[in-house]
């Protein structure tokens, strides 16, 4: 009996572990990549590093950012960020700015071969407006409290009737950073009882240049050319988005020729890619700008002299180059690039002496520990941020610059969800550090208007900034009939916001894409970056690759 006892223990231990191994072994997580032989197809394959958002796991653009090349909007954007036709062929806007008559291209095919018509456009609009569908874009089509009305004129013409003029409406018929209005197939989606759990979400069908053939969650997404694409047969046979655990791994793969395209952020990796003769690094700025915004409800910060002093005390360019990377550029206002960027904004140059003088004027005198004081109160402020996008380094640098002029800056770093709630919902901050700006259409009024101050979202104005003139300018810009008119009011708004020194404007999100020599047909010069850095692929159907 005692001899058996010992074996029992061992057998039990070994068996229990083996069971685990067997369970694992019997169910491989990855199927071997399927090779689809294409006769006489000499087009190449493009291997891209997929970002988080290109591994959507859900391919329904109503529910999820699908940053792949599966879908098209009615409108796309040219180099200057002006809308140009995509699935739409042309449009007419009535004189009162209320009726948009949109002609559609003929002969556009979905991936399953069915033709796209006005019915699909109307259906997509209805789904977007459906309260039961969890689309985040519904409110984009509610203008002045009322929904946009959509009508089918004939199979290739639709009409959108706006409750009031809206200069940003056309841009909403696109896929950009802020909106995904891409045309979906009615004949498939109308069979779905529940959009949340629809089979379409895993087996998407769009009109885009590529269609989904395989995806392994968090590992790869394989797309294949949609040969009936309306702009012509795509130049690539296949696009594979691969997950790499980190930038170093992606760089190693680029250098060894296992990967064609990857976005890089770390300066060391960018340098390494530039030094490689087989790689080219493309670089372009975006309209996303990191800014430190002041809480106007804070008694210290209510004094414009203090805000101006802080703006002058920081060497923004050096700070951002050190914290983010040597090629980083800074901006001076909420709109930096494109037709809407005002040339007349107030720029705050690095001038610590001026900062000190402003603080003296405001009554803040240097105290015994080097920090300024007024009426027994120390000039001490807190900056709130999460750890992403170099914010900790930026905040630390700002702390040093401000200390030099006698301002104490305390750092309050929070985990993203907590930071988001603290800043946007509770509004408990003196200064917060986060992205401002936009992807393509400069519809930024909600971040600066008084009336949106209570909202609690990323789009809101948590800093209690209130300037009736700014409100009026944004309202006028929204109902403007022409781009020129809209531009005039947007410029005015920026000039006022910068005159108020409402924020310290820091760096522009810069895409740095390393691309191998295999790849051709890029859209050069690249237009501005979206957060997914894919602007050199503005026309993905033209891209080619020599990789078999």
């Amino acid at each position: 009996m005692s001899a058996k006892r010992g074996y029992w223990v061992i057998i039990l231990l070994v068996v229990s572990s083996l069971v685990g191994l067997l369970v694992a072994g019997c169910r491989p997580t990855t199927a071997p990549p399927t090779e689809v032989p294409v006769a006489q197809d000499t087009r190449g394959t493009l291997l891209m590093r997929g970002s988080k958002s290109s591994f959507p796991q859900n391919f329904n653009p109503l529910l999820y950012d699908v940053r792949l090349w599966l879908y098209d909007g009615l409108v796309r954007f040219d180099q200057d960020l002006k809308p140009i036709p995509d699935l739409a062929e042309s449009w007419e806007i009535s004189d009162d700015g209320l009726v948009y008559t949109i002609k559609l291209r003929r002969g556009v095919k979905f991936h399953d071969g069915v033709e796209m018509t006005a019915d699909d456009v109307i259906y997509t609009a209805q789904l977007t407006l459906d309260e039961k569908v969890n689309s985040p874009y519904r409110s984009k089509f509610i203008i002045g409290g009322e929904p946009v009305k959509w009508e089918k004129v004939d199979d290739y013409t639709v009409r959108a009737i706006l409750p009031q003029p809206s200069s940003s409406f056309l841009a909403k018929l696109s896929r950009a950073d802020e909106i995904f209005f891409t045309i979906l197939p009615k004949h498939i989606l109308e069979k779905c009882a529940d959009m949340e759990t629809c089979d379409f979400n895993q087996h998407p069908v769009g009109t885009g240049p590529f269609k989904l053939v395989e995806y392994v969650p968090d590992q790869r997404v394989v797309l294949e050319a949609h040969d009936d694409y309306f702009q012509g047969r795509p130049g690539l046979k296949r696009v594979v988005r691969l997950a790499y655990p980190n930038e170093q791994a992606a760089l190693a793969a680029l250098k060894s020729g296992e990967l064609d395209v990857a976005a890089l952020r770390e300066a060391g990796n960018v340098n390494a890619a530039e030094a490689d003769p087989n790689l080219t690094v493309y670089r372009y700025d975006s309209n996303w700008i990191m800014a430190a915004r002041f809480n106007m409800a804070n008694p210290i910060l209510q004094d414009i002299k203090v805000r101006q002093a802080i703006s002058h005390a920081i060497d923004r360019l050096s700070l951002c180059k050190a914290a983010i990377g040597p090629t980083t550029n800074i901006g001076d206002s909420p709109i930096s690039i494109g037709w809407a960027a005002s040339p007349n904004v107030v720029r705050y140059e690095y001038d610590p002496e001026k900062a000190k003088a402003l603080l003296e004027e405001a009554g803040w005198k240097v105290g015994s520990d080097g920090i300024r004081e007024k009426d027994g109160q120390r000039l001490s402020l807190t900056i709130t941020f999460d750890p992403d996008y170099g914010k900790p380094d930026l905040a630390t640098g700002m702390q040093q610059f401000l200390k030099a002029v006698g301002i104490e800056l305390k750092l309050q770093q929070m985990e993203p969800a907590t930071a988001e709630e603290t800043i946007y919902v509770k509004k408990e901050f003196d200064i917060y550090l986060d992205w401002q700006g936009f992807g393509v259409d400069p519809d930024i009024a909600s971040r600066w208007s008084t009336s949106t101050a209570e909202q609690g979202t990323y789009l809101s104005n948590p800093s209690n900034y209130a300037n009736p003139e700014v409100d009026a300018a944004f309202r006028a810009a929204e109902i403007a009939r022409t781009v020129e008119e809209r531009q005039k009011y947007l410029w005015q708004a920026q000039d006022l916001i910068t005159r108020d020194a409402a924020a310290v404007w820091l760096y522009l999100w810069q895409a740095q894409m390393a691309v191998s020599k295999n790849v051709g047909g890029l859209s050069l010069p690249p237009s501005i970056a979206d957060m997914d850095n894919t602007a050199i692929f503005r026309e993905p159907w033209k891209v080619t690759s020599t990789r078999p």
Partner: protein
Amino acid sequence: MYRLILRRFLLAIPTLFVVSFLSFGIMKAAPGDPVRMYVAGGMSKGSVEDIERIRHNLGLDRPIYVQYIAWLRNTLRGDLGYSLATRRPVAQIIAEKLPASISLMGISFLLSMTIGIGIGVLSAAKQYSLFDYVVTVLAFLGNSLPAFWIALMLIWLFSVRLGWLPTGHMSSYETTDSPILDYAKHYVLPVTTLSLVSLVSWVRYQRASMLESLQQDYVRTARAKGLAERVVLIRHAWRNSLVPIVTLIGFSVANLVGGSYIIETIFSWPGMGQLGFDALLKRDYPVMMGVTLLSAIFIIFGNLLADLTYILVNPQIRES
């Protein structure tokens, strides 16, 4: 004995219940709102109207206890719900990730246990030898070094410096290696790190327990009988020293499950730990609950296994 086993088994049910209740409560109490963060499109997208509407559609505006009861009812029916982030069934997501985790944990468990016991026995048998000193010092070190640090050092050395092993993931998309070699290469670093986490405990417990049983009268008797030292060590001392250390199984499973959260995240291992960690950051409540529940089941199962083994090896309990 069977009643004891049955009791242990039944006790697991209220434990799971309490675990689910507590994790649901803590999760909901933590700041952060998935609807605002990403369900409504995240940054620069959803307006208040969109956020409130989606929150209502998903039932996230109901009181927490109502949400918990709804979750519990569905879970008891075998429906773990849908991920807020991806809108895919939680059960399906977990099923995809489970094999990667179980194989990682299984191999690590087996390795750490066998190597740990081996080293522990040798170290005790040669107490105060150089080997014993080295083992004691290393075990002390291993106990103090955090797993994530070990993981990063291993990546730095073997992937970045030497370039021998991949930095993460389970397999390569394109490789000249055979699939088995490719998998093996990917397993080395995570398995090593995860094994080290529990190896140290196995060594220390086995060494202590072995030293204790070497002092027992029956060992002296066995030696006095003139048995070979190998027989004395293995049959008499080691076998008896196993009784206290089988309880380490439960502890070790808990260690592996907990450790896998960190290790999988560092190595981009497509398993449950990484899934849970991502879900935690995203406040993806249904996925978090699913992963937590499964982790709790693993740990409870580990403890149950330890109890059963303990009963089997300990006649005092077995016969009562």
